[in-house]
């Protein structure tokens, strides 16, 4: 699906921007990090939604329509899609986690359950090498958090 591909690409671009911003002079910029996280959340939600549509396991019907490029509409149900509803056991066809990633879901800190997505649920499928390494690096650094948790951790470090 074009939307899925675009969402994944935006997610990858956003992660690399967030990563790069940690090393820039002056430190992490809260405003920029917040905007990046919003884009990442939208892209992640679109990605989830389209994967569930593909897997035909969604509880609510998605109403996505795609435009040209990456300016896709956000589904109305995006806000209702809680990552915690997605079971870790539900994996994509070729989404076996690479063996450099931890296999266990570590303990969450209180208050982070909302944001921590299970590891397998949003793995890029199949990931290009450079994104996988970036993702791996991020995950090795924050093993028990989803991507939003990584962003929050970055924001918290300010």
């Amino acid at each position, binding site marked *: 699906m074009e939307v899925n591909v675009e969402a994944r690409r*935006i997610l990858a*671009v956003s992660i690399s*921007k967030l990563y790069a911003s940690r090393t820039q*002079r*002056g*430190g992490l*910029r*809260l*405003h*920029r990090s*917040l*905007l990046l996280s*919003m*884009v990442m959340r*939208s*892209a992640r939600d*679109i990605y989830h939604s389209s994967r569930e549509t593909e897997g035909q396991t969604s509880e609510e019907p998605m109403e996505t329509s795609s435009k040209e*490029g*990456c*300016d*896709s*509409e*956000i589904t109305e149900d995006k806000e209702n899609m809680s990552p915690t509803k997605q079971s870790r056991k539900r994996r994509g066809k070729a989404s076996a986690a690479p063996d450099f990633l931890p296999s266990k879901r570590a303990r969450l800190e209180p*208050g*982070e359950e*909302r*944001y921590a997505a299970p590891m397998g649920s949003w793995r890029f499928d199949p990931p290009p090498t450079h994104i996988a390494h970036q993702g791996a690096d991020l995950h090795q650094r924050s093993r028990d958090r989803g991507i*939003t948790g990584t962003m*929050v951790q970055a*924001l*918290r470090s*300010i």
Partner: protein
Amino acid sequence: MGAGGGTSDVQWCFSQVKGAIDDDVAEADIISTVEFNHSGELLATGDKGGRVVIFQQEPESKNQPQCRGEYNVYSTFQSHEPEFDYLKSLEIEEKINKIRWLPQKNAAQFLLSTNDKTIKLWKISERDKRPEGYNLKEEDGRYRDLNTVTTLRVPVFRPMDLMVEASPRRVFANAHTYHVNSISVNSDCETYLSADDLRINLWNLEITDRSFNIVDIKPTNMEELTEVITAVEFHPNQCNTFVYSSSKGTIRLCDMRASALCDKHAKQFEEPEDPNNRSFFSEIISSISDVKFSHSGRYMMTRDYLSVKIWDLNMESRPVETYQVHEYLRSKLCSLYENDCIFDKFECCWNGNDSVVMTGSYNNFFRMFDRGYRQDVTLEASRENSKPRSVLKPRKVSTGGKRKKDEISVDSLDFNKKILHTAWHPLDNIIAVATTNNLYIFQEKLN
């Protein structure tokens, strides 16, 4: 003469350009703020290297009454130096984020300049005489041997070459955890506001060791953060009123008389989003990068990524006027996100009588919108158009399929050439437009 003149009858001429001609731009020379003082006689710029350069307008020449005085360098000083926060292992950039002039009270001029963490009050004063004929000192300053002093004489002031001195009079530090994005001097000339991403502090200009936090939007749990403060400004006449803008596209007006803490706003200005324009980047482009009151205090202007909006303070539900700065970029948001241009923070400004507003764009274009005549014009700041008193030709970006002669296509725009900072003389039709590292001064063509 006057600050009026709609775009229908004003023609703009090149006057001066300041800065290096090299295409290789040194990062320290990147201009980060531009501000006229209250009389327009002085024009200050701040740059990424932490320097402030002040230009002074020469008195109008009797020989050339058609030409307003040129701006020449008056003072240059290093306002901020890079620092290091050892606790957080973070470098604090010396880049000057904002300069604000204080109204002049005596012979000296005062301005506030700020980087990400520290605000400084600078005194700029002139010295054109010096004491000579000391009793105990030689002319070069060395103390005389007291055995050789046999007479008494009193030093007298003698004229000297004009020297402009800038001295830091106050340093307002350690009050901001996050990055300071704006400062605003109150009309009472005693207090000012400084805002970072999450907090706004009220200072007394005389007191540096404490400030009063009047707005705090930091959530208890940072994971719940949804918006940050992007700009703050005091009302030009009402010393109790200020506004602050947010990354969500809202503007909140606060009245300091209502309570000591202004977390609860008196008014909230917000326009509902057009659902047809919803995209991945809707939040980014709705973030307000600048807010400016009109000189009258009746209106305020906000700048988001694609538009300028004029708000009537009496109406919160929607702006009274909206001007599209570069709507042709709406279909390019993905590319602009990838090359980071979507994060650019454009400023905006009013002319002296609030009839025209101005803001920058890409390709070294800047735009003026005449509120009365409902006309707009796109002009360009470039070395090619820099013959003295040459009239600026309006530019046009081709948005349709067929590009007319003299139009430039969207794909040909240079996104590295951006005009983020502009300023309008408070009384005359003189504008200062900052490209990356050059400052252009344009004047109204006078016959």
